C-alpha cells in the first residue's frame, strides 16, 4: 500500500485547538462520522496516548503520530492535522520530555505488514526540514495533500 491510498483532502484538517484532548476529539469524531473508525477509537486513542505518548521532536517543531489498536479501525487511513497553535504532547520513547506539536498524522491502521512503506514514507517526511517548512505554509487541504505527495515521491526515490 502507498501513502496516496490512505490520505485525502477530506482527511486534512486545519485545527485551532488547546490541547490533545480537544485535538483527538476533533479529528476522531470526523473519522467516526465517515465510518473510518469505530466509536471505541476515541477513548482508546486517549488512553493509549496517556500510556504510550506519540510526540516526536524534529529540527523545526514537534510532530505527533497518535494511533491505537487495530480493533477500533474499520478502514485504513491517515488523517493530517495542521495546528494553528502548537499543542503540548509528551515525547515518544524513553524520556519524559514534552514537545510542542504543530503537525499531526493520526493513524488508523490495521495490518502492520501492509504499513511498512506508508509508515516509512511518513517517517522520512517528518525528518525532511523542507517538507516540514512547506506543509505548515499550506493554505488549503489540497495544497497539503499535494505537498505531502510531492515530498513523499522525493523521499521514496532517495531511499531506493
Amino acid at each position, binding site marked *: 500500500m502507498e501513502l496516496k491510498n490512505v490520505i485525502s483532502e477530506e482527511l486534512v484538517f486545519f485545527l485551532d485547538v488547546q490541547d490533545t484532548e480537544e485535538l483527538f476529539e476533533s479529528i476522531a469524531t470526523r473519522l467516526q462520522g465517515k465510518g473510518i473508525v469505530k466509536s471505541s477509537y476515541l477513548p482508546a486513542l486517549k488512553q*493509549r496516548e496517556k*500510556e*504510550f*505518548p*506519540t510526540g*516526536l*521532536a*524534529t529540527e523545526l517543531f514537534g510532530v505527533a*503520530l497518535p*494511533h*491505537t*489498536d*487495530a480493533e477500533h479501525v474499520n478502514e485504513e487511513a491517515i488523517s493530517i492535522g495542521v495546528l494553528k497553535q502548537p499543542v503540548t504532547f509528551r*515525547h*515518544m*520513547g*524513553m*524520556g*519524559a520530555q514534552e514537545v510542542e506539536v504543530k503537525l499531526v498524522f493520526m*493513524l488508523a*491502521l*490495521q*495490518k*502492520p505488514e501492509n*504499513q*511498512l512503506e506508508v*509508515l*516509512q514514507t511518513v*517517517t522520512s517526511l*517528518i*525528518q525532511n526540514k523542507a517538507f516540514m517548512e512547506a506543509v505548515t505554509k499550506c493554505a488549503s487541504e489540497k495544497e497539503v495533500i499535494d505537498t505531502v505527495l510531492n515530498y513523499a515521491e522525493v523521499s521514496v526515490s532517495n531511499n531506493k
Partner: protein
Amino acid sequence: MKKLLIMCGTGIATSTVVTGKVRDWLKENNLEDKVHLYQSKITDELNRLDEYDIVVSTTLVPDNVKDKVIDGVPLLTGFGTEEMYGKILEIINS
C-alpha cells in the same frame, strides 16, 4: 543467533518502521544470519523480555527493565541513529 525484539505500544505502527529499518541495516552489514527479528506490543512482552538478547522499544518501559531496553526513537526522528546501532552491534558481537 541473537533474538532481537522490537516493540511499541500497539505493535503495529512505530515498531513496523523500526523493524524495517533494522532489517535493512542488518542486511547492509551482513548480519542477517546472526539475528532473528521479532515485532510485538509492549504489553505482550514485558513478562518475557528475558527470552530476548536485544530489546528495542519506541515507547516508555517500566523502570525495572530499563537497563535491558534500547531506545528506538532515533530511527523515527533521525537523531542519534549511529549511537543506537552501536548499542545493538555491541550485543550482537558479545
